[in-house]
């Protein structure tokens, strides 16, 4: 599909989005490999101002995009990824999108599906086929992973133009991942009998690895924050987000990469004291630096903790851009040297960390504390490789 998407992109000079849903992203299987496409020759675009998106040019380009819509639609109508299956029983017509088609067909492994099926994997919707299935069938069932986008589109705002079932009328759950059993129930009303989970089975939430430095950093932070209560620590995404779970319950937010710093700054501006931001080293260099610059310029009264484990732990230990650069980045952005403090998150340094966090909370301005100790996983890998 990616191959085809690149070809389309070249043909129409537009970006083509490959839309993945959760299960697809976490699934693998044997694939047929085509020979690699050669790289394009390096050359300037014919229209050299193509990417100068000043209003006058952007307006022109938008007209070109609109003019292409019909072609996109006819591409969809002839696309090998959008197929029409003529089922005999026209009481139901099924529009199955992406991975939902797999769940549908799973229920017809041994006998062919009795209903007409339009499989949609290329957008915009193939109009001809949609018209055909909706005019030939008494009722449509729309199977879509994620949001019911096509269902809403076809139903229309008033919801009275077609007889449509799917996520919006409760035929399928309004939210959550689909699966073969839910699709079967939607079509036949059949509920799968299944065994139950014995009561003794206990929940096993994810945890920090044994010896992870984030544990010691949170233990110190928690001790200090006892005095202030909940609601002061704005954090980010990474392994350290596990600090939101028991037994730590240390952090109060995780929104998007970098939001810890900007949210803490906003909170400090609005009068929250103390305002603490917690971010990973890699997330900091990805999108935390701009927020810190803002805090420096206004000398915001907040404490930033950059949890430096010298890697991108959560996504599997890729190299972090921050390695050996954190202090110089903070200095470069204008943080006062005396308030950039490295600590080593170890049990034996607990008292020292507690003291430093207290001290920096009491400093009226921006401070950066950097608990620094390598991730146990990358450390293990390195030790093994050196053996």
């Amino acid at each position, binding site marked *: 599909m990616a191959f085809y998407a690149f070809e389309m992109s070249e043909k129409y000079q537009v970006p083509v989005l490959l839309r993945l849903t959760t*299960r697809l992203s976490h699934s693998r*299987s044997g694939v047929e490999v085509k020979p690699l496409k050669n790289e394009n020759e390096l050359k300037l675009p014919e229209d050299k101002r193509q990417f100068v998106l000043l209003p006058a040019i952007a307006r022109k380009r938008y007209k070109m995009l609109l003019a292409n819509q019909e072609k996109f639609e006819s591409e969809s109508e002839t696309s090998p990824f959008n197929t029409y299956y003529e089922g005999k029983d026209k009481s139901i017509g099924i529009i199955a999108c992406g991975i939902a088609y797999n769940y549908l067909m799973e229920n017809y492994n041994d006998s062919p599906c009795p209903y007409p099926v339009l499989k949609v994997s290329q957008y915009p919707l193939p109009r001809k086929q949609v018209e055909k299935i909706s005019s030939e069938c008494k009722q449509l069932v729309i199977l879509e992973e994620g949001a019911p986008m096509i269902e809403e589109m076809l139903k229309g705002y008033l919801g009275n133009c077609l007889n449509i079932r799917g996520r919006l009328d409760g035929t399928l759950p309004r939210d959550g991942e689909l699966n*073969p059993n839910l699709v079967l129930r939607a079509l036949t009303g059949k509920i799968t009998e299944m065994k*139950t989970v*014995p009561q003794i089975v206990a929940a*096993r939430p994810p945890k920090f690895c044994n010896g992870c430095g984030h544990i010691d950093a949170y233990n110190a932070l928690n001790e200090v924050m006892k005095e202030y209560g909940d609601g002061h620590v704005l954090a980010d995404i990474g392994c350290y987000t596990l600090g939101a779970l028991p037994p730590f319950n240390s952090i109060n937010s995780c929104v998007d990469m970098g939001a810890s710093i900007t949210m803490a700054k906003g909170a400090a501006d609005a009068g929250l004291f103390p305002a603490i931001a917690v971010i990973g080293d890699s997330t900091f260099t990805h999108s935390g630096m701009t927020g810190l610059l803002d805090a420096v310029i206004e000398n915001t009264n907040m404490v930033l903790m950059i949890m430096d484990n010298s890697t991108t732990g959560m996504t599997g230990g890729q190299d972090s851009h921050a390695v050996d650069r954190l202090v110089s980045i903070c200095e470069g952005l204008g943080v006062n040297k005396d308030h950039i403090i490295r600590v080593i998150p170890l049990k034996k340094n607990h008292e020292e960390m507690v003291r430093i966090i207290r001290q920096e909370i009491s400093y009226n301005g921006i401070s950066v504390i950097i608990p620094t100790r390598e991730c146990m996983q990358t450390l293990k890998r390195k030790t093994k490789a050196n053996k």
Partner: protein
Amino acid sequence: MKKDIILSGVGGQGILSIATVIGYAAIDSGLYMKQAEVHGMSQRGGDVQSHLRISSKEIHSDLIPFGGADIILSIEPMESLRYLPYLSEEGWVITNSTPFDNISNYPDINAVKEEIGKIKKHILIDADDIAKNIGSPMSMNMVMVGAASDFLEIDFEKLEKGIRFIFGSKGEEVVNKNIEALNAGKEFSEKFRNK
């Protein structure tokens, strides 16, 4: 031929290697294969689950339907029970008996074994102990592959080749230990069933 296998355990125990060995052997045998993983946060000591489907016919769904699994292959006993809703009427639960106790409310292990004993078709195997006995505690997961090997309808040699594929870069000794673990698991599993 169609085998739907739920792989379960605790993040870090080596489920992915199991999936890779069986998956490799399946593809090498000209079969279709699909594998869906639960990734990310769950890798850190949380419960992990992977759906492995192999078949001589094209496979549609990436997820095994509830009530459809032929095998639950678990490297942790309590985790084998978590996925029972997936097990088919005639399905097997093949599980390691050594608990991985990293939570404060881990149930009494005898109660866990009792629950496993209630499942019509089950194999309870101390894979940790078997792996230790052959001098390769890390090969516990390959003991489990061995324990399931008779149910996979895949040539045993293909599984050995799968092991060579993933451990080959670590040297001949590691490969041989894992193949030994595979054989030991198979042997124990046969004995357990004939008991």
